Structures are given as C-alpha cells and as structure tokens.
C-alpha cells in the first residue's frame, strides 16, 4: 500500500477533518480571536456534511506493516454517537461564543474530534490512538483557568487517562496474541470455558476507567468542576460516552455490567443529595446517568445504551448549560449562595426546567423515550432487584437533578441576587437543546431510525399506557417525597461543606503510602540515574571524539588516506565477489 492511500483514508475521516480544523483554528492570532468561533462552527458543519455524505460503511482498509486496519467504520452504532457528538459540538461552540481563549477553542474542537475518531474506529490500534488523543486534548480544558489547583487536578486527570490508555494498549497486544487480529469487534470478558481472559479484563478496566466505574470514578468529580464554565460541559459529554460506545461494541450483554451499572446509578445519588456545589451535583449525575447506559449494555440492549447516551448528551448538557448561565451571571455555583433567580432569568429557568423534566424522564420528553428502553429491558430480564434499583435510581435522578438543580438555583430562598438574563448565544444553544429534548420526545421515530438495532424496535412503542402510568407514578411519588422531606425539614439543608468521597482513602492514607513509594523510587532512581549519567556522558564524549569536528570521521583527511580507504573497500569488495 502506498502513502497516498493513507492520506486519502485520513482526508475523508470526519474526525481528521475536525482535528485539522482545530489545529488551523489554534493558529488564528489572538487579535482576531472573535473569528475563531464562527470558523469552528464551519468546521463542524463540514465534518457533519462529510458524515452524511459517507453514509454507512468502512473506509481506510489499509495494510500497515502487514497488519490490516480499518481506520473509519460507520455502522449504525458509530453513526448514532457520531451524530450526537456533532450536535453537541455545535451547541457547545454556540454556547461558548463569548470565549476568547486559544487553548479552550482548540480543545473544544480537537477533543470531540478524538472522541469521534474513537467511536468510528474499526480496529484497536486506531481506537488506541484516538483514546490517547482524547486524553491529551481534553486536559487543556481542565488547565484553562490556569491556577495551581487546576494544574494539579489536570495532572491527576492526565495520569488516570494515560493509565487507561496503557491498559488499553496491553489489552490490544493481548488480544492480538490471542486472536491474531486487530479488528475491534466483540471482545468479551470470558472465553468459551468461562474463565476470565487477560485481554478482555485489561480492555474492560481500560474502558471502565473512562466510563468512571464505581471506585474508578473520582477523577470525574476531581477534574470536571475545576474547568471553566464551558469547559466542564464539554468535558462532561465526550470521554464517558466514548467509553460507553466502546463497551457497547466490545462487551455487549456482559452480565457483570448489569451490577456495575446498578451500583453506578445508586451511589452518586447520596453524594449528590448532600453536595452543596451544584456543578459537582451534576458531575455526580454524570456517573449516575452513565450507570443507566452501562446497565443497558449489560442487558444487551444496545439500543437502550446508545439511545440513552444520545438523549443524555442533550438533556444533561442542557441542564449544565442552564446552571452555567446562572454561574456566568452570578459567579457562584453554591446552592447556599444561589436562589430566587427566576425573577430576572425567566428564560433560563424555563429552559432548565425542560432539561430537568427530560432527565427525569417525564413523558413527552427525550428522557422518557430513551429511558423506557432500559427499564423495559430490566423488567424483561426478570431480575427484580435490579429493576427495583433502577426505579429507585430514577427517582433519585428526579431528586438531585430534576428538582435540586432548578429549585436551588432559581427558587428556594431568595439570595437577593438580581442578575441579567443569560446572554443571547447561551439562550440560543439552550433553546436548541430544549427543542431537541421535546422534539424527540414527541416524535420518537426519528430517534428510533438512528438506533443500532432497528429490528429490536419493531413492536416497541414508548407511549403505551403501561409505560406512561409507571413513569408518572414514579415521578409523582418522588415529587411528593421531596415535598414531604422539605416540609418536615428532613431534606439535607444547603450547607457550605466539602464532602468526602471514596477518593479520601487514596488521597490521605494512600498519599502516605504513595509518598513513601515516591521517595523509595526516587532513591533508586537517583542511584540508577547517576550511573546512567556517567555512562551517557562517557558515551557522548566517545561519540564526540570520533564524530566531532576534530574526530577521525569528520577530519579533512590527507589524500593518501582517502585513497587508502577506497583501496580497502575495493579489497573487501573483491574478497566478497571472488570468494562466494
């Protein structure tokens, strides 16, 4: 194969188009910074056009150093994620229209590009490359505020993401050794005999870190809220959804995912209920929402997982944008310092409530359509406990995301703040997201048309009386519970506090252990380094002695020596020519 095939394969890839666009936009000088956002929108439009033009299929089937790879595969699963990534990227660019920061502008395009490249990769090597690019481009968003705490947080984030990438690489190598192929298809955690495969496990944990499985989740709450207003929203969308798409492709119907997902849906709720920082509440909500998707993958309903990811990106994004608008105007995201903003920000309030209804799966919204598939699959699996857990978690979503966010931001006690309405570009982005929430809620067939397994949806209907009544009961009772808790003053009051998550264990006792390990490593390293340094210097001195300007190889030799070297070569050549 030739290099031209490689370039051709790269040139048609929407993810590459976005990446190149990001690089070019980073070159726009700061004096013309206002040009960047319109250009970014144009790049997204070009990439979206390319995506529709390509349709379904595979491209870039190349043989690189003897191994077949597929650099671009758009099947229905990849397409669903690709479509929603484009929608999200466009909305976020509009939402951040006021941003004039080179690093953020670059990352807002390059990082979605990497996630897009990941979901559309047809082989494991391509996946690995995009996996790492996503880690590296996204860290710019965490570093964007430029303080020491965000820097450290970004480094921690990067460490964990690179750890995930390393595990993935190990998994790729092991898979290649087992199967002799680099194709990215069903991986599976166990082999035919039921024993756990090392390759499967490495990939599973690699995906799990990015999907923020329980106990691997702390980086989300650590890093995401520290980014800028718009940065947090960008971050919240892509990394975890890339992991969901990869899990759906590699580990569909893996029973372990049901339980992992169930735990993921439950535990963040408690943290979210007592958390005072509303941005952190939404970050916990990411875990909970991804939990539903992981559960759906475990049940084997890829439609449910992909559909919920699609919906979640839009309505969770809407909630985050609405909260972000409030923070943009007031400068705080603490529940204790917000409240009563509905007086001066009525439009934002209204849009926030659309998002809240949607995330709570209120009939007539995107959330209802998307979540129905998962709850249905849970019921059909005849696993009562899991079904109950998911119902409870759904109620919990209503509590912390559906009610807590709008209530404490726009109502609750009057904070006395009278900020302006959100800026127009934010209203446009939120309005579009809200429109999509309702549009897909009312016309679910358009969502179904994108689903990876349309045949499974043949006789499925969202709006059966059973589904609607079940969901309404849930919503009514959960709302009543909130009311009762509030009236009885049992609801956790807004207290300015810092809540400890499980990461306390590795931050405090773990830190001691870590520092001991660091000191030990440092000691060993300094001994080794000293030895290596001496060796290296010796080697360099020897290279310099031979190759340096006065060295034997670089000197201007007398002509006799030149002739001698030629004669020696001739002698050698004659020996080989005549002796063989």
């Amino acid at each position, binding site marked *: *194969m*030739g*290099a*031209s095939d*490689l*370039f051709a394969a790269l040139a048609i890839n929407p993810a590459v188009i976005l990446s190149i666009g990001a690089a070019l936009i980073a070159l726009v000088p700061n004096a013309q910074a206002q040009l960047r956002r319109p250009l970014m929108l144009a790049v997204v439009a070009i990439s979206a056009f390319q995506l529709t033009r390509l349709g379904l299929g595979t491209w870039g089937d190349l043989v690189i*150093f*003897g191994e077949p790879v597929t650099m671009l595969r758009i099947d229905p699963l990849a397409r669903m994620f690709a479509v929603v990534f484009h929608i999200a990227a466009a909305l976020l660019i509009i939402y951040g229209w006021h941003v004039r920061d080179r690093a953020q502008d670059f990352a807002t395009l390059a990082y979605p590009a990497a996630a897009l490249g990941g979901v559309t990769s047809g082989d494991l090597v391509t996946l690995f490359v995009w996996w790492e690019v996503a880690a590296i481009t996204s860290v710019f968003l965490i570093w964007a505020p430029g303080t020491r705490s965000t820097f450290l947080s970004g480094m921690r984030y990067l460490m964990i993401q690179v750890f995930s990438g390393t595990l993935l690489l190990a998994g790729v190598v092991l898979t290649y050794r087992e199967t002799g192929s680099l194709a990215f298809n069903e991986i599976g955690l166990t082999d035919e005999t039921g024993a756990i495969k090392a390759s499967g496990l490495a990939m599973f944990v690699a995906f799990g870190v990015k999907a923020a499985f329980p106990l691997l989740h702390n980086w989300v709450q650590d890093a995401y809220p520290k980014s800028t207003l718009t940065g947090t929203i960008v971050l919240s969308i892509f990394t975890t959804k890339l992991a969901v798409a990869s899990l759906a492709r590699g580990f569909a119907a893996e029973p372990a995912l049901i339980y992992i997902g169930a735990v993921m849906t439950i535990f963040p709720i408690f943290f979210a209920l007592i958390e005072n920082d509303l941005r952190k509440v939404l970050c916990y909500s990411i875990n909970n929402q991804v939990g539903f998707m992981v559960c759906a993958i475990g049940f084997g309903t890829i439609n449910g997982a992909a559909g919920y990811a699609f919906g979640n990106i839009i309505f969770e994004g809407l909630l985050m944008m609405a909260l972000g608008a409030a923070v943009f105007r007031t400068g705080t995201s603490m529940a204790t310092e917000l409240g009563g903003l509905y007086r001066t920000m009525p439009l934002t309030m209204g849009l926030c409530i659309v998002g809240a209804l949607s995330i709570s799966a209120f009939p007539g919204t995107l959330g209802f359509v998307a979540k129905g598939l998962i709850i249905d699959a849970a019921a059909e699996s005849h696993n009562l406990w899991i079904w109950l857990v998911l119902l409870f978690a759904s109620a919990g979503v209503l509590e912390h995301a559906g009610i807590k966010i709008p209530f404490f931001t726009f109502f609750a006690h009057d904070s006395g703040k009278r900020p302006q309405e959100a800026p127009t570009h934010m209203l446009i982005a939120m309005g579009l997201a809200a429109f999509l929430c309702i549009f897909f809620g009312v016309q679910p067939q358009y969502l179904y048309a994108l689903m990876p397994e349309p045949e499974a949806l043949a006789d499925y209907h969202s709006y059966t009386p059973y589904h609607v009544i079940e969901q309404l009961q849930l919503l009514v009772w959960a709302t009543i519970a909130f009311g009762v808790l509030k009236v009885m003053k049992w609801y956790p009051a807004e207290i300015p506090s810092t809540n400890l998550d499980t990461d306390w264990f590795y931050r405090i006792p773990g830190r001691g252990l870590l520092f001991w390990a660091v000191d030990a490593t440092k000691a060993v390293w300094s001994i080794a380094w000293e030895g290596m340094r001496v060796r290296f210097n010796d080697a360099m001195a020897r*290279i*310099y002695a031979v*190759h*340096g*300007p006065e*060295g034997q*190889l*670089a000197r*201007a*030799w007398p*002509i006799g*020596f*030149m*002739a001698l*070297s*030629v004669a*020696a*070569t*001739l002698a*050698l*050549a*004659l020996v*080989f*020519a*005549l002796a*063989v």
Partner: protein
Amino acid sequence: MIIADQLPVLPIITPLALAPFTLLMPNGRAAHLWAMAVTGLSFLFCAMLLAQVAEVGVISYQLGDWAPPLGIEYRVDLANALVMLLISGVAALVAPFSYESIRTEIDDRQLPMFYTAFQICMLGLLGVVVTGDAFNVFVFLEISSLSTYALVALGGRLDRRALTASYNYLVMGTLGATFFVIGLGLIYQATGTLNMADIRAQLEGSPSNSMVEASFAFIVVGMGLKAAAFPMHLWMPNAYTYAPSAVSAFIAAASTKAAVYVLIRFTFTVFGTDFEFIQAMMTYILTTVALAGMFFGSLVAVFQSSVKRMLAYSSVGQIGYMLLGLSFGTEAGVQASLIHLFNHGLMKAALFMSVACVMLRLGVHDCAGFHGLTKRMPFTAAAFIFAGLSLIGVPLTVGFVSKWYLLQAAFEVGRAWAGFLIVASSLIAVVYVGRVVELILLRAPPEEGPLSADVNGEPVREAPLSMLIPMWLLVAANVYFGLRTDVTAGLAGRAASALVGGGQ
C-alpha cells in the same frame, strides 16, 4: 513528428551545441540568461521524454543510425527518465537562482566560464543517465566530473580551501573513474561487448567467472566513490562546503544521484541479480556501507558548525538510505531507492539554496549566521525549516514518502531490524536539523559584531526574488510530491518493476 523521434538525444545535444557559446558572451548577465535558456530547454525536453516513456515504454535511440551493439544506443526507460527530470529540473532552477549569489562569490570575468562549466556539468550527468552504452557512461562521467572540479575550484576566491578540496576531489574522482573503467575493461573481456543490453544477453545463463566478479567489484567501488558512499565519502564534505553556494546546491542534488542511478542500473539490468556473488555483495558490502553511512554520516552532521558541511555529511547518511533500498534487491527496495533519490534531490537543493541566501546577505555559512533568521530573512528561514522537516521525514513532505516506502521494503524482505535502524537514524536527523531550526526560531539576531549587519554593513534584508522564487518552487515541490505520492511512487514503482522484473 520529427522532435518526438529525436527526443532522447535532445537534452544532451542542446547543451552540447549551445554551451560553448556561453564563453563568447560579453558579460555575466548575458551568460546567465543563455544558461537559463539552455537548462530550461533541456528540462523541457526531459519532461517531454518522461511523458513519452510513461506512455509508450522503453525508447531505444540509435546515434547516427548505427545499430547496437556496434553503434551507441540511448536507451530510456522510466528509471532514467525520472533521474533526468530531477537533474535537468534542479539545473533549470539553479540557473536563475545562481546569478545574484555567484556574482558575490567569484570574479565577474569568470562568470561566462562558470556558466559554461555549469551547463557542461549538467550535460555530462544527463549523458551518464541516458546512455545504454557502458563505455559511454564513462565518457559522460568524465565530462561531468571535469567540469565539477572546475566549478568547485571557483570557490577559491572566497576561501582558498576550495582549491585543495577541488584538487582532492580531482584525485579521488579520477581514482573512481579509473576503477570504473577497469571494471568495464574486465566485462568487455568477458563478454566482448559494451552495450548494456547486449552484456546482459551474454551474461544471462552463463556461469559466473572471476573476471565478471572482479568487474562488478570494481564498478561498485568506482561508482560508490562517485556516489560518496561511506567510507569513500572523504572528498565530499570539503567539496560541498567550499564550492560556491549555487554549485553546492546543484551538485549535492544531482551529481551523486547519477552515480547511485548507475549502481542500480549495473546491478539489476547489466549484471542481474541471479548471480550468487551479486547477492553476497549486496547483503554484505552494500548493506554494511549503507548502514555505516546512515549512522556515521548523520552523527558527524550533528557536531558541525558550518551548515553547509552539516548538509554535506547529512548527504552521506541519505546516500546510505538509497543504497539500503538497493541492497534489499527487491522491487520494493529499488522503488524506495529511486523515490528517495528523487526526493532527496528536491530537499537538498532547497536546503543548500537557503544556505546560499544566508551566504549572500551575511557572507557566512556557519550556524552563527542562522541566529534569529526568522526576524531578518523570514522566507529563507521558512524554506530551510520546511525542507529540513522534509529531510527528517515529517508527514506531508516528500521525506515522509521516502521513509515510508523504505520501511515497507525493509519489512517486506523480513529485515525488521533495518526498519528500526532507519527510524533510529532519522532521529539523528531530528537532532541536526532541530539544532539549526532552534537557532532560526528561538535565538535573537546578533545585536553587535560583524553578523549584526549584512556584508555591506547595511541592515539585513530578505534575499532577492530571483533566488526566493526557485527556492520556493523546490519547497513547493517538496510538499506537492509529498501529497501527490502517486506521481513519484507510481513512476518509481513501474521503473523498479522494469529494472528488477525485466519487464515494463
């Protein structure tokens, strides 16, 4: 059509007939314009020739209608058409480029002589490549070499060391040519013919004998010397360093390439790889020489203080890549070798041209002249950086295409270790190019001292357009052929299959 029939001979006959008139030109300007016209015409004919060969296949042209093997035959296939295009193309770009630069480096009275020698040199190199007659190769080789010695010696006005460099080159070049002609004598004894195709026909199927074996050894060493293969490169760094800047740009891009081409031609279509001793020579001698050149050449380049000298040593390494591709003995290897031969001509010419621009304004080719070049000569600096990236092998440049095919060829013959060594030696290229790029981009231009102003004591200006345009055409070619890889790779692939497989 009459022109189409005579096309193989036109690139040779045009300079042969017209170059001597350059001596009669009244001044340097007229000689320069004359040389531009002649080299331009040659380039045009070479391009037409390549187009024709690509369409109809091998063209055999009988000089004076004497049929080979008695008469001299010009035999053009894609391999030599491609090399001819490179040689005449670089000459056609160096001719307009040279005037401003050479005027400051040699005596005005010598300008007509310089342009005569320049055209003769190009003529000789084209002749070496075009001919299908083994002895004719020697004749043209001497024509080009003699004029090159004169061209290098012209640098003597600026730096007397050019005279010893030229003298050493003369001795060594003669030695190489002698070895080559001894090789030819032996093969003539063995086969009784000097026509390449006829030698091949005589050798085919016959058992090997020590005359043939010795002949090949002499030819490889003689041409290896002309190609500056390690360890026979010792004449080359000084010749490139002290020759006038424009001369360096031309001979670095063209003259060693002709020698590499002859090596490929003799190995595959004159002797043929069925001989066991040729396999052994390729495996043991050529591979060793190639690898040693790749590393020693590149490592020495790292420590040079003169940028011209650094580029010269880098050429030793780059010749190593070409010989490595050749030593694989496969179609893919020869294809990679031909691609790199063409591409390296493009990048080295651009690099030496940017050094010539610095030389014109600052009068030095030391690293010191490159400090903060972006602020003083932004276009020259950018050209150096682009061509340097190409030399390293960064994607979207021709250098990447070369390395790509070379790696593929290495993996194809199962020499993965050679692939790793290619990458490792490319990393050394990152160091020696990066070192100069760092000076260009990050250092401030000198505030005081002789380098704070140009040679006339005025603020440093960008090089004149007559130099910038040819240089940037080459940089553009570096990028264009890096993107349109099908052009070079496709032609080189077809040429290689003809050379190695024997069929077109």
